[in-house]
């Protein structure tokens, strides 16, 4: 292949095409079309802005959302967090670490039989509330749990 063409293709592939594809919401993950990555939400520096970017309004506190996480996380780089929603027709769960530099850590949309349940591990920079936001039947519900962090895990 012509050297110049190879270089141009490489540059286009690495930068332009991907960002266009991402911006247009055409990012494919596996064989299914993934939802557009919520840049506004993930770049929000404060929880209220993250919630706004998620489209959350009128969220009610709910005891039917159970957050399982350590009271004290020894390693802020690997904090196990499980969210179980007992609310019927749970469509999504979003997890926010309130004092992280970028509070929104993840969102999970459920369909075709997936339960309102997710388990993962997060990085937490410091002691903070872990806030779970559930969307069920188009309505929003929240719960939160404080996790003390002894060694922060966000980097540096």
């Amino acid at each position, binding site marked *: 292949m012509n050297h110049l063409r190879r270089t141009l293709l490489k540059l286009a592939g690495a930068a332009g095409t991907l960002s266009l594809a991402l911006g247009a919401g055409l990012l494919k993950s596996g064989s299914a079309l993934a939802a557009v990555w919520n840049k506004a939400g993930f770049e929000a520096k404060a929880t209220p802005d993250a919630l706004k970017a998620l489209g959350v309004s009128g969220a009610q506190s709910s005891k039917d959302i159970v957050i399982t996480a350590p009271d004290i996380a020894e390693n802020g780089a690997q904090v196990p967090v*499980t969210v179980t929603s007992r609310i019927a027709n749970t469509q999504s769960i979003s997890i926010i670490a309130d004092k992280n530099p970028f509070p929104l850590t*993840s969102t999970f949309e459920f369909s075709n039989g997936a339960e309102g*349940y997710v388990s993962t591990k*997060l990085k937490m920079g410091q002691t903070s509330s872990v806030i779970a936001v559930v969307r069920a039947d188009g309505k929003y519900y929240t719960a939160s749990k404080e996790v003390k962090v002894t060694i922060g895990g966000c980097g540096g």
Partner: protein
Amino acid sequence: MAEPMKIRARIEGDAADVKVLMGHPMETGQRKNEKGELVPLHFIQSVIATHNGKTVLDAQWSQAVARNPFLGFRVKGAKPGDKITVSWTDNTGDKGSVETTVAAS
């Protein structure tokens, strides 16, 4: 540069309980390497799980998900022998994918 993924899906009650471990550095862009240089942002942004070809989970992640991410989810009504796939795409366009069949409890 995808590292191996591990997956296990087993019937628990009326659902398949799926656990996945994905090999990925999940760099926040804040960490410095041995030379004191900032390691660039490199993290899984999107994870899709399917059950017998239908999407059951569509997740979006930030760089705050831990290194070598763990993910657990449950699919109601899944039966032994059903196929579960989990695929991810990161911010550089790199991908990883794994599939398994649901084992009986």
